[in-house]
């Protein structure tokens, strides 16, 4: 601090500290409390109750959580959620990066084609689900017709426990590849041209430039895309619910579907809330891992 503040300004500062600014903060604070904090506290409280809609409610401590740890179906759902998330992050990342590399090149009608490619991302998930359900139909669907043109025998797609997850991931990949593409395109546009010039002088091939310059430099963008996609895929509900409702049997039942079933079909709010709390922990944990990964890749950005 330089010099003593004059009396007047001191009084003003006191006003500042005594809360004159509070009216500006209250709205944000209230909204945060009402929309974010309260629902979570309430869910946590519900998860400690034996609460079947339509019946009496009673406090049962951690019994819902104890039940969760002996619930085979919950663990299977967790495994499926992780597999589904892993695949629906990985595939859009691969295809999105390829698409971005293609659309980064100059060619006629590029803007128009980019627009077309981005379209799946803008469609409503439930509408997408309905269209894909028709396409997956083993007898009447177009996918099996296309396969038959190639001489491949008809597949059961979402109508078989063994292929249902990959088939759903196919839909997810189709819808979200454009998002990854946009993120990576942004990254490509921001890359400096000097490394490429020196690589050209050194006689690097196209593949070498891709492998040793482009890919390392866009890693931070890939991590951002993976982060967005990961959180989104973990929470995925609409596409799975509209296409299979978690079936056949429980073959595509993710935590979200199971949680919905418990809370809204079986009306077991207490147990449903316990699943929601554990699911929240899982989402936060995975988010932290991805954020940490992002931190690790930050230095490349600084160097680039």
């Amino acid at each position: 601090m330089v010099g003593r503040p004059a009396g007047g300004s001191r009084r003003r500062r006191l006003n500042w500290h005594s809360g004159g600014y509070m009216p500006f903060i209250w709205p944000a604070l209230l909204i945060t409390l009402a929309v974010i904090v309260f629902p979570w506290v309430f869910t946590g409280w519900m998860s400690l109750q034996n609460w079947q809609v339509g019946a009496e409610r009673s406090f049962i401590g951690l019994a819902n959580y104890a039940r969760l740890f002996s619930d085979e179906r919950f663990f299977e759902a967790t495994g499926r959620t992780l597999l589904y998330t892993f695949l629906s992050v990985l595939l859009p990342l691969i295809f999105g990066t390829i698409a971005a590399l293609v659309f980064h090149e100059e060619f006629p009608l590029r803007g128009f084609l980019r627009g077309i490619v981005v379209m799946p991302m803008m469609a409503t998930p439930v509408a997408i689900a309905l269209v894909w359900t028709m396409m997956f139909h083993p007898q009447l669907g177009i996918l099996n017709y296309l396969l038959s043109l190639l001489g491949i025998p008809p597949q059961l797609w979402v109508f078989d426990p063994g292929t249902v997850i990959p088939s759903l991931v196919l839909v997810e990949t189709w819808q979200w590849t454009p998002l990854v593409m946009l993120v990576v395109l942004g990254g490509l546009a921001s890359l400096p041209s000097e490394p490429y010039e020196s690589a050209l002088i050194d006689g690097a091939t196209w593949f070498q430039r891709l492998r040793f310059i482009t890919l390392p430099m866009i890693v931070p963008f890939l991590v951002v895309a993976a982060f967005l996609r990961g959180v989104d895929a973990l929470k995925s509900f609409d596409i799975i619910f509209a296409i299979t409702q978690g079936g056949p049997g429980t073959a595509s039942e993710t935590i979200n579907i199971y949680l919905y079933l418990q809370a809204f079909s079986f009306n077991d709010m207490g147990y449903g809330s316990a699943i929601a709390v554990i699911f929240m922990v899982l989402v936060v944990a995975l988010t932290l891992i991805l954020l940490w990964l992002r931190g690790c890749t930050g230095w490349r950005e600084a160097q680039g």
Partner: protein
Amino acid sequence: MIRSFGRTTRRQFLVTGVAAGAGVGMPFVRRALAATNWRKFDGTSIEVSMIKSPRGDIIQKNLKAFEDLTGIEVGLEQVPEQQQRQKSVVEFSSGRPSFDVCHLSYHVQKRLFEKGRWLADLKPFLDDPELRDPNLDPEDFSAAGKAYATNEQGELRSLPISVDYWIIYWNKDLFQKAGLEFPQTFDALIAAAEKLTDPATGTYGFVARGMKNANLPVWASFLLGYGVEPVGPGLQLNTTSEGALAATRMYQHLLTKTAPPGTIGFNWNECQAAFLQGKAAMWLDGVGFAPPLEDPTKSRVVGKVGYAVMPKGPQAHASATFGDGLGIADASQNKEAAFLFLQWALSKPLQAQLLQTGSGVPFRKSVLADQTVRQGVKMPAAWVDSVIGSAEVSKFGLPVVVPVTEFRDIFGIALTNTLSGADPKDELQKATDQFRPILEKSEA
């Protein structure tokens, strides 16, 4: 608990038919309903929550007639089935439902609604000559309807609007080509399904729902034929009995050996698509799915469809029955006006339209038996015959317990698992063990 209902003979149908008299259409309403003071609640407004369905559509289409008749303003909302069920349960348990009249699915919600005591007792209204429409007689409801609407104390807390029997749609062409008659027993059904299956041409003998939850009525149709009540008196679970095992084996056999590939994920619409394309010889499903089959713009089998009552099982002849009704929220402030709406929704002209368009089947015997009503039915005569034949052997398709949804989910998964090769005996045992604590807890 499954109940069996008294048989109604054709003669009784005719007698009631004559008694019911003729004349359908809107002018009829005023004449027949004249004794009731329909305008008593002129200016009141009520809210109605309905499941999105052909039943709801018919009421919505005619709503203006009700508003003109009574001066009551109706806010009617149709919500898809699953969501409407959730919404009504959540709103009822909050104590302040936003609606006065609620549409309920008896086969899923009967016990739940009774336990919650959410609906108003209709007796005071039925006893009030100013409110009661003399044409509406609770005795007119079929036995299944009465059983659905009446609770354990014998109170009537809702009115049954539409019944759903499970029948077999069959492709006459495919049967004729194979030189087969329509089967009369389960064994004959299996044999016919096997003979009609030819994967090389893509035709299959039988198609029905394999998707979990949706598949329960198919299994129930077989269970009933084997004389099995899934939940017996005293909450006894009979789902591991010999009969249950035989029914499950039959389900597994038909859906894996004589049905199109992928039935494991089929709901009614996929089954219907297969049947509409002429690719399936028999389809077991609810009676309300008939209209598209006779629509030339949607169907390749117009005029070739046979409608049949479920064949006889080794132990019993039964048609799995489901149904829905309308009730008045006990918390409603406009119960009398709501009661007028209920009476109107169940009046003969509306119930006749339901049957005539093939969108549902009234529980009211007098409507079913009315020759004038029957002449107006747009479906083939065989469809109406299958309805009347099913009414004679009608039995509840799902146990009347609180956790019906859990029952459907757990046993639905077990059935689906048998379609991917799991052993029926193990699956039934596992499902029964899983369901027992839920059932016991719900009635505790």
